[in-house]
C-alpha cells in the first residue's frame, strides 16, 4: 500500500471558553488514502467540523490546534507558514460548506466565484476557468450548463446551488475535498441529486474526501470508511459496510437504531371527534399568486396529522393560515365546530389558548432575555390568571412532564442545549392547555438521538393529555414514527391524504412515491440502486426531481 495522502496524528484542538482553553478534540488520528471517502459522523458538538477543517490546518476563530501532526502528501502542515497553507487551501484541499446559500457571495455570478480559486492560485486564466466550469456543471448534471454559471446565487434552487458549490470545490482538481454536511439543509428529493453528484465526481477524478454529517444513512451511501466521534473522541472506526452490519459500540448502535422506532398501535383506537377542520382554504401573500389552493383537512382529537412536502410546498403557509397570521383569501378554519375569525386580531383569547405552536428553531423561539420561569409562567398568567404561587407550582409540574430538572426554572434559554430548549418550547405550549399543537419541523434542527427523544416525549404527552398534533415536516422517517394520518403537499395543493398505513403502502401518488423512495436507507448500495431504478423507469425522460427554480 502506498503512503497515505493525509495523515493526522494525535490532534488536539482547543477552544477558547471565557479565559481558558478547553480541549475540543482530544488526540484524534486520521488517515486518508487517495480516492478514499471517509465519513465523519457524530452529534453536533462532537467536533466533526472542527476536526475536518483541521485537515487543512485551519481552525475557526476561537479555536487553535494545540498539538499533533498533519502530514499532507509528505509535507507537515502543523506550524507551516500561512503563505504555504494558502497555496494549498482551495487548490489541493477544498471545502464545501453546509449552507451554500450562506456561503456564496450574493453579489457575484456563480462562474466568477468558480473561477476565483484557480485564477488566484495561477492554475488557469479566467477564460480557461469559464470553460472548465461549464464542463464541471455538465458533469454535475446541472440544467443548462452553458448559462447557469452566469446566474446569481439567488437565481438557482438550493440543490443546484449546493452542486455549484461542489463544482467550485472541484475547480482546482483538489486531492481532498472536505464536505461539511452538504445536504443537511436540503429536502430529501434534492439531497439525492447532490449525493449522486458528489459520488460521481469523487469517483471520476479519484478524489479523496472527508464527508462530515450527522446522518448515518447519508454517509453510508458515500463513504468507504466511517469514523464515529463523540465529545471530541473516537468512538469507533471501521470499514463502512462492516460498521453498518456489525456496529461494535453501543453509541453507534443507537445511531443506527434511530430510524426504526414507530408509534404504538394503541393510539389508533382513540376517539374520532374532529377538532380542526380546514375547508377549501386558498391563501396568497401577494394577492395575485396563490400559495395554497383549495386545501381541505381534518384533525381529530388525540391524533397526529403529518403534513409532508418539500420546502416551498406551502406547509408552513398552511400553519400561518390556521394560526391567523395569514388570513386566507377563501375558505375557513373551523375549530371544534366554530368557524375561527380569519385574522389573528379578531380572535378571542380562548381561541388562541386552544391552539399552540412549536417552532423549528428553539434558539429563536425563546426570548434569550427571559428566564424559564417567565417563558412558561406567562401563558399561565395570561390565559388563566394564575397567581405567583400557582404559576410556580404549575411550572414545576410542567418541567417534570418534559423531563427537565426543577432548578431549570431559574435558567436563561442560552444556558440550555438545543434539545432542552425544544422541551421548554413544548412546555410553553402545554402551559396553555391546548387542544391542538402545530409542530413546525420541530426536530429538523436537532441531532438524531435528541430528535428521537423529543418525538417520544411528544407521543407520551399525547397519550396522557389527548392533545392533537399537526406535524409539519419534510422528514419521512419522522412521519413514519409518529403520525396517524399523512397529508402530502406539492406546490400548494394536497396531492394525497389518508391514514398512515394506506399512504405508506403502494400504490402511491407519483410524488409521494418520489418522496418515499428518496429517504436514505442504511444500505451502502441504496443510492446506486435507486438511481439505476429511476433511470430505467424514466426511460430517458428527465426525472421529475427539479422543482421549478
Amino acid at each position, binding site marked *: 500500500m502506498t503512503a497515505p495522502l493525509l495523515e493526522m496524528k494525535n490532534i488536539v484542538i482547543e477552544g477558547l471558553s471565557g479565559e481558558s482553553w478547553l480541549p475540543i478534540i482530544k488526540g484524534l488520528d486520521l488517515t486518508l488514502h487517495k480516492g478514499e471517502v471517509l465519513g465523519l459522523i457524530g452529534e453536533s458538538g462532537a467536533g466533526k467540523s472542527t476536526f475536518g477543517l483541521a485537515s487543512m490546518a485551519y481552525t475557526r476563530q476561537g479555536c487553535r490546534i494545540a498539538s499533533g501532526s498533519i502530514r499532507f502528501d509528505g509535507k507537515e502542515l502543523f506550524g507551516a507558514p500561512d503563505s504555504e497553507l494558502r497555496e494549498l487551501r482551495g487548490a489541493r484541499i477544498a471545502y464545501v460548506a453546509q449552507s451554500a446559500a450562506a456561503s456564496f457571495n450574493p453579489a457575484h455570478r456563480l462562474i466568477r466565484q468558480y473561477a476565483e480559486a484557480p485564477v488566484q492560485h495561477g492554475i488557469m486564466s479566467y477564460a480557461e476557468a469559464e470553460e472548465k466550469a461549464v464542463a464541471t456543471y455538465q458533469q454535475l448534471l446541472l440544467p443548462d450548463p452553458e448559462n447557469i454559471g452566469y446566474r446569481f446565487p439567488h437565481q438557482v434552487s438550493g440543490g443546484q446551488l449546493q452542486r455549484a458549490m461542489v463544482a467550485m470545490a472541484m475547480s482546482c482538481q483538489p486531492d481532498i475535498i472536505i464536505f461539511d454536511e452538504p445536504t443537511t439543509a436540503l429536502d430529501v428529493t434534492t439531497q439525492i441529486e447532490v449525493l449522486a453528484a458528489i459520488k460521481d465526481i469523487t469517483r471520476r477524478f479519484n478524489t479523496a474526501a472527508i464527508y462530515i454529517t450527522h446522518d448515518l444513512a447519508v454517509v453510508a451511501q458515500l463513504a468507504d470508511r466511517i469514523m464515529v466521534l463523540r465529545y471530541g473522541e473516537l468512538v469507533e472506526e471501521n470499514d463502512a459496510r462492516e460498521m453498518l452490519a456489525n456496529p461494535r459500540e453501543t453509541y453507534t448502535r443507537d445511531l443506527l437504531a434511530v430510524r426504526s422506532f414507530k408509534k404504538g398501535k394503541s393510539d389508533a383506537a382513540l376517539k374520532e371527534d374532529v377538532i380542526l377542520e380546514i375547508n377549501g382554504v386558498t391563501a396568497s401573500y401577494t394577492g395575485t399568486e396563490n400559495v395554497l389552493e383549495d386545501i381541505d383537512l381534518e384533525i381529530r382529537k388525540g391524533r397526529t396529522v403529518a403534513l409532508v412536502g418539500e420546502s416551498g410546498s406551502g406547509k408552513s403557509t398552511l400553519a400561518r393560515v390556521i*394560526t*391567523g*397570521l395569514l388570513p386566507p383569501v377563501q375558505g375557513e378554519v373551523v375549530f371544534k365546530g366554530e368557524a375561527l375569525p380569519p385574522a*389573528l386580531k379578531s*380572535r378571542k*383569547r380562548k381561541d*388562541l*389558548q386552544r391552539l*399552540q*405552536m412549536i*417552532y423549528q*428553531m428553539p434558539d*429563536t*423561539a*425563546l*426570548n*434569550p*432575555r*427571559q428566564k424559564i420561569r*417567565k417563558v412558561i409562567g*406567562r*401563558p399561565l398568567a*395570561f*390565559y388563566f390568571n394564575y397567581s405567583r404561587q400557582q404559576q410556580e407550582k404549575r411550572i414545576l409540574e410542567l418541567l417534570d412532564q418534559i423531563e427537565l430538572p426543577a432548578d431549570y426554572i431559574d435558567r*436563561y434559554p*442560552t444556558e440550555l442545549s438545543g434539545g432542552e430548549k425544544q422541551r421548554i418550547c413544548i412546555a*410553553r405550549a402545554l402551559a*396553555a392547555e391546548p387542544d391542538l399543537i402545530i409542530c413546525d419541523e420541530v426536530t429538523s434542527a436537532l441531532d438524531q438521538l435528541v430528535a428521537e427523544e423529543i418525538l417520544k416525549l411528544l407521543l407520551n404527552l399525547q397519550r396522557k393529555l389527548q392533545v392533537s398534533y399537526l406535524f409539519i415536516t419534510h422528514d419521512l422517517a419522522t412521519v413514519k414514527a409518529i403520525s396517524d394520518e399523512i397529508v402530502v403537499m406539492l406546490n400548494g395543493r394536497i396531492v394525497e391524504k389518508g391514514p398512515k398505513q394506506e399512504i405508506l403502502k403502494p400504490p402511491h401518488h407519483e410524488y409521494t412515491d418520489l418522496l418515499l423512495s428518496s429517504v436514505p436507507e442504511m444500505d451502502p448500495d441504496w443510492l446506486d440502486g435507486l438511481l439505476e431504478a429511476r433511470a430505467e423507469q424514466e426511460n430517458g425522460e428527465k426525472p421529475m426531481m427539479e422543482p421549478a427554480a
Partner: protein
Amino acid sequence: MTATFKLLRSSPFSARLGMAMVLITLLAAIFAPVVAPYGETEVAGDVWLPASADHWVGTDNLGRDLFSRLVYGARNTIAIAFLITALSFIVGTMWGFLAATVGGWMDQLLSRIVDILMAFPTLIFALMVLSVVGTSIPALVVVIALLDSTRVYRLSRAVAMDIEVMEFVEAARLRGEGLWWLMRHEILPNAMPPLVAEFGLRFCFVFLFIAALSFLGLGIQPPTADWGSMVRENSGAITFGIFTPLWPAGAIAFLTVGVNLVVDWFLHIASGLED
C-alpha cells in the same frame, strides 16, 4: 442586590476606571458649594490668570475662578445632558418600537414625520424654535430631546425590526399579547446593547450641541456655568497661547471617556449573555 455587587466585583479595570471617573464628576456636581473655593459667578481676580495656589486652574475671560466654574458647570451640564438624553431615548424608542411592531401605515406615518424633522439641519431647527418660544432650560431640554429622538427613533426602529421577525415575538403574538407587552418584554430587553451604546454617545453629543447653542446665545444663559459654553467663552485665549479653554474641554473629554468605558462594559456583559 448581591447580584449587582457580584457583577461589580467581576468588572474589569477599564470599567472600574470609568465608574470612578463618572463618580468623581457626579460627586463634584452634587457637592459643588462645598468643593468650589469661589462662587459660580464671583469675579475673583484678573482675566486668564495662570494656575496658582489661589486659582487651581487659573481664571476665565472675566476673571472668575475656573475651577469653581468647572465644578458648578458639572451640575448644569450633567443634569441637563442626562435629562435630554433620557427624554430623547424614551420618546425615540417608544415610537421606534411602535413603528416596527405595528408596521404598515403606522411605520410609514412615523417614519415620514421623522424624515421631515431630520431634513432640517438640527442647529437651524433648534434656533428657530428657541427664538420663537424663548430660551429657558425646559424649552432647551424639550427641543434638543425632540431633535435627538429622531436619531434614536431610526436606530431603535431598525433594531426592533430585526427582533420583531424572531419566532419568540411571533409566539407572543399568537398568545394574544398586546403591543405594550411585545415592546416592553419581548423587544426591549433584546434591543438593550445597541441602545445603551448609543446612549453613551448621544450623551456626549448633547454637551457639544448645548455648547453650540450657548455660543449663539440660545443655550444656557450666562452667567450660568456649563462646560460647553466655557470652552466657547474662553476659546479666544488659545490665540494668546493661554490654555484656559482646554480645562473645560478636558472635563468634557474626561466625562465622555468615563461614560463610554462604563458603556463598553455594559455591552460586553450584554453580548456575553447572547453567546
